[in-house]
């Protein structure tokens, strides 16, 4: 039983780290703001969730688990909402998404440089 818990915890942590890393690569490598946000926004929630679940499996103390659960809930709520608000604000301020039609490097087309 112990081994199973430990294994699954390690697996969760590994998966979470991998997701976070891919998000990090995404924020560096993607061409314009919206795609970067996509990379971060998508991986962040699941990556953070995975790591937190991994941590939860490590510790039997109920208070710690409750706190971790709180963090998890908050990440799940806050992260998408923040991304949403961010994208909306960027779009409202005329930051044009990169599309097939405008081939130039995206993200620089801002009304307020």
């Amino acid at each position, binding site marked *: 039983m112990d081994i199973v818990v430990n294994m699954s915890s390690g697996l969760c942590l590994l998966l979470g780290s991998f997701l*976070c890393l891919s998000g990090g690569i995404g924020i560096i490598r993607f061409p314009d*703001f919206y795609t970067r946000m996509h990379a*971060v926004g998508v991986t962040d929630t699941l990556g953070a969730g995975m*790591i937190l679940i*991994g941590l939860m499996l490590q510790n039997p103390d109920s208070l*710690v688990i409750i706190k971790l659960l709180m963090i998890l809930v908050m990440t799940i709520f806050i992260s998408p909402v923040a991304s949403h608000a961010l994208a909306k604000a960027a779009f409202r301020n005329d930051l044009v998404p990169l599309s097939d039609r405008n081939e130039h490097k995206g993200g620089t087309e801002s009304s307020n440089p």
Partner: protein
Amino acid sequence: MLIAATLAILVVMMMAIIRGFIGPTLYDRILAVNMFGTKTVLLISLLGFVMGRPEFLDIAIVYALINFISIIGVLHFSDSAAFGNDPHDTGSTKKES
């Protein structure tokens, strides 16, 4: 495994900082700060376990909250009259020098 995860988080934090520095738009920086904040929350939680004192998770909760509030703050201000081409421009306080 904990250490590996911590290292991965640190690498991602570095990446966020790089994006924060090179910009190019304001929103990229906000995104970087947001990501950095989330990663800090994870880092603190992991560190608590690495150091063997996991009862300090309160700090991580505060980070999560503060991160959210400051992102909202940034959006609120970047959205506000002084910056965008908002019809409700209150204008008079703003002097671009």
